[in-house]
């Protein structure tokens, strides 16, 4: 199954999953439960570096999805599965609830249809709350709100730990994670008529053979689809969303996620807590051509600060900790583009525009069942793999620096290196030695929060870089098999 030393693709993997975002890692994790050889390949040097890492980090209930759509169904299912998985894997989640606030008569008139839509999506907990209650719950809300709906189960989640947990579980179950592996071409196998030929993928790390290919390539999924002779039924058009992250001292200003009422003119801007204890303002929505342009713009940041000033004036008096932009993989279709072609032994999970994090486990389950129906033999593995217990990087629970027991057992958890985010040497050491270790400082940030704080490295950048440089470089997942990478570390 591995790319051979001399550039020859040796034995074929049962499945190659292209794309290690939140959807691809969820699919690999699901497939890892069966007796299959699975390769998870991504062009980037880490999991979850595309759309997955830069979004609003909300665990949606799906109350406002298009009723009857696949997105509605998988969002509902995925959200329930992820809520449970997150609890077991230690993924930070805060059930803050959401308040959908109407500021104009037009927005107010849309509320009944939003409630109706929630009902059609089998979500019945939405209720309209009096304006007085709204201001009681959110005293720092700007003046002029006319009406509000409460969606009590909307939550915020850590978008970095989630794909890492999936990938960690997958790698420990034997999935081969190949990072820095860009698929550059393909000779599709599985021709019409039932021929047995394998797919042959060309990658920047040599050829890969596969019985089945799963396309979870996000912003590049239409290109992968074309390479594999898919039906070409969709084209990705990147939609850029810029976001502003406010200092943790702003967190007490807000209780729930404050959602806008989408109108014909604009989808609107939300204000939400993050599980790291910050406050997020965004996103903008701009269709662009460049699939890698995650730069922020003067116009985008100005429009956000203007919107933020109306929603929560005091927010703008706090310091900004970060600004960033993410690209959503929008297509010309409103719904997910998920299809399984039994003849070609090719599956595609594309057009997961902005709900991939919430729906990921639902998508993985659905796709795997469809592949089973299409002839992929699914025999459960002997002995089940439990979810990994991920290092906790949320703000609501107990972090290592707050845990006297952890510090007593290992003083490295008492040595804070990144002061703004209170990240200890112990946590950095653990991340560097983890099943899916970081390849660079950004990877370390996503695993520990180091350097994600208000000083942006004024105090700790040099120390953190030094720890990173000194880290022993063991077998990287992409350098060995999953079993090797996981060896020497208790699951």
């Amino acid at each position, binding site marked *: 199954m591995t790319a051979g030393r001399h550039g020859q693709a040796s034995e074929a993997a049962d499945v190659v999953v292209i794309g290690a975002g939140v959807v691809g890692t969820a699919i690999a994790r699901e497939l890892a439960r069966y007796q299959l050889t699975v390769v998870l390949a991504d062009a980037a040097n880490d999991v979850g570096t595309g759309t997955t890492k830069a979004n609003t980090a909300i665990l949606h209930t799906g109350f406002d999805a298009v009723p009857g759509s696949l997105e509605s169904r998988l969002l509902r299912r995925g959200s329930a599965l992820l809520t449970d998985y997150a609890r077991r894997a230690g993924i930070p989640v805060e059930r803050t609830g959401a308040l959908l606030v109407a500021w104009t008569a037009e927005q107010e008139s849309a509320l009944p249809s939003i409630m109706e839509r929630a009902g059609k999506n089998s979500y019945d907990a939405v209720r309209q709350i009096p304006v007085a209650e709204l201001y009681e719950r959110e005293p720092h809300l700007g003046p002029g709100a006319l009406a509000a709906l409460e969606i009590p189960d909307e939550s915020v989640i850590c978008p970095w730990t989630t794909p890492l947990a999936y990938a960690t579980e997958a790698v420990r179950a034997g999935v081969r994670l190949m990072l820095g592996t860009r698929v550059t071409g393909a000779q599709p196998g599985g021709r019409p008529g039932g021929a047995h030929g394998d797919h042959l993928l060309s990658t920047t790390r040599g050829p890969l053979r596969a019985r089945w290919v799963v396309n979870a390539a996000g912003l590049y999924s239409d290109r992968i689809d074309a390479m594999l002779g898919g039906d070409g039924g969709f084209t990705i058009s990147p939609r850029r969303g810029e976001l*502003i*992250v406010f200092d943790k*001292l702003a967190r007490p200003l807000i209780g729930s996620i404050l959602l806008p009422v989408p109108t014909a003119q604009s989808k609107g801007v939300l204000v939400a807590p993050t599980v790291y204890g910050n406050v997020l303002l965004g996103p903008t929505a701009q269709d662009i051509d460049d699939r*890698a342009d*995650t*730069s*922020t*713009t*003067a116009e*985008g*940041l100005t429009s956000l*600060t203007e919107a933020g000033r109306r929603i929560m004036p005091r927010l703008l008096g706090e*310091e*900004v*900790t*970060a*600004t*960033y932009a993410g690209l959503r993989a929008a297509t010309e279709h409103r719904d997910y583009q998920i299809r399984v072609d039994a003849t070609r032994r090719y599956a595609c999970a594309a057009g997961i525009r902005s709900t991939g994090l919430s729906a990921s486990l639902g998508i993985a389950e659905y796709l795997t069942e469809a592949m089973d129906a299409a002839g992929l033999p699914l025999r459960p593995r002997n002995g089940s793999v439990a979810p990994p217990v991920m290092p906790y990087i949320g703000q609501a629970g107990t972090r290592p*620096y*707050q845990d*006297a027991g952890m*510090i*007593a057992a290992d*003083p*490295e958890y*008492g*040595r*804070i290196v990144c*002061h703004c985010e*209170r990240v200890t040497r112990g946590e950095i050491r653990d991340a560097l030695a983890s099943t899916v270790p970081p390849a660079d400082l950004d990877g370390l940030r996503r695993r520990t929060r180091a350097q994600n704080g*208000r*000083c*942006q*490295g*004024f*105090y700790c*950048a*040099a*120390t953190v*870089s*030094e720890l990173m440089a000194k880290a022993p470089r063991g077998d990287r997942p992409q350098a060995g098999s999953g079993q090797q990478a996981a060896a020497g570390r208790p699951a």
Partner: protein
Amino acid sequence: MNADVLIIGAGPAGLAAAIELRRLGAGRVLVVDREQQPGGIPRHSAHTGYGMRDLHRVLTGPAYARRYATAAAREGAEIRLTTTATGWAGDRIATLTSAEGIEAVSARAVLLATGCRERPRPARLVPGDRPAGVMTTGELQQRVYARGERLPGRALVVGAEHVSFSAMVTLAHAGADVVALVTDLPRQQSYAAFALGALARWRVPVWTSTALRRVDGRDRLTAVDVADMRSGAVRRVECETLVFTGDWIPDHELARTAGIAIDPGTRGPAVDTSLETSARSVFAAGNLVHAAEIADVAALDGVHAARHIAAALRNGNLAPAPDAPQASEQPAHRVPIAVEPPLAWISPSSIRLPALADAVPIAPPRGHFLLRSQVFQQRAVLEARQGGRVLTRQRARLIPGRPIHLDAAWLSKIHVSDGPVLVAVAHG
């Protein structure tokens, strides 16, 4: 654990306060710092010029830091390093985390001396990519002086105040080719002799009235866009390093989480002339209350706060113990002092009156108030009024980011019942 005085921050202000408190017999003085070495920011600043005002000699930053740390230890202050004050478990009860564990320290008085940091790029809302190679002066100095990193290639410095020139010198030392200093103000703000000397030596221009518009580079920094604010013309400047300098913000998290009133101008805790905050027996000193002054000034603040803390300890004039009834508490008499635009802030921001009605108000550290201006004005007159009365008129040169002093010799003229003192730039 209990301490008579808990000092948070072992920089110049915290260490100078610890030394003075011990000399005045303050009892158990505990200084905590989250860093591995005492001394604060001067540790990373290799240039000379430290210690002229407070130690009456000229030292490099690291030598200055060592001198204070040694003296504090010699005087019997207890210094705990790699120890972070993470929050409060009650009034004047700090929660400390270190390799030894988690501990609550209860103190009769607390001095906050947590300093300030430079506002980094995201907080300035500069659009564009997020490449490597963009940093603050603080990070630059640690990379170059503490870790010996080289930074070859072209570099651009954002800011033209004193610290910006310091960043330029550090960049040159690290092998960078400094293209320019960029400021959106109409001229540079550093001391003329220093700035002109440095500019001549390294032949670096200052681009005034120039705004940074965009940062480019997907992985490493490749270029920035700068705009001439007079003509609107935008041009592209290729560079590999971009250093954001100055634009200081106090590290006020512990003050905020303690519920201490924050001064909207300085953004540090509001303090009176004894350097006491809105929370009784909690004092604040150094660049936490006036970001940013040189280390000497921070150290002299520490001495000033220490004298008032020691006097309060001696006279029993402190807040009651956290578990004692609150009834005995007397509100401190303070007269607010504020500025009008184009002045940006004044520190301290209130005048402390002793309990005795006829006693002279407490003078600010070093006998003067510190102010900042938003504009340049070569020959300005500052006027302080209370009610309709002019208390003082003093000449001053206004330069944004540079300290402006208002001598406090007139303090005996204030009346506690006449309302706030207002400081403005006099017209005509």
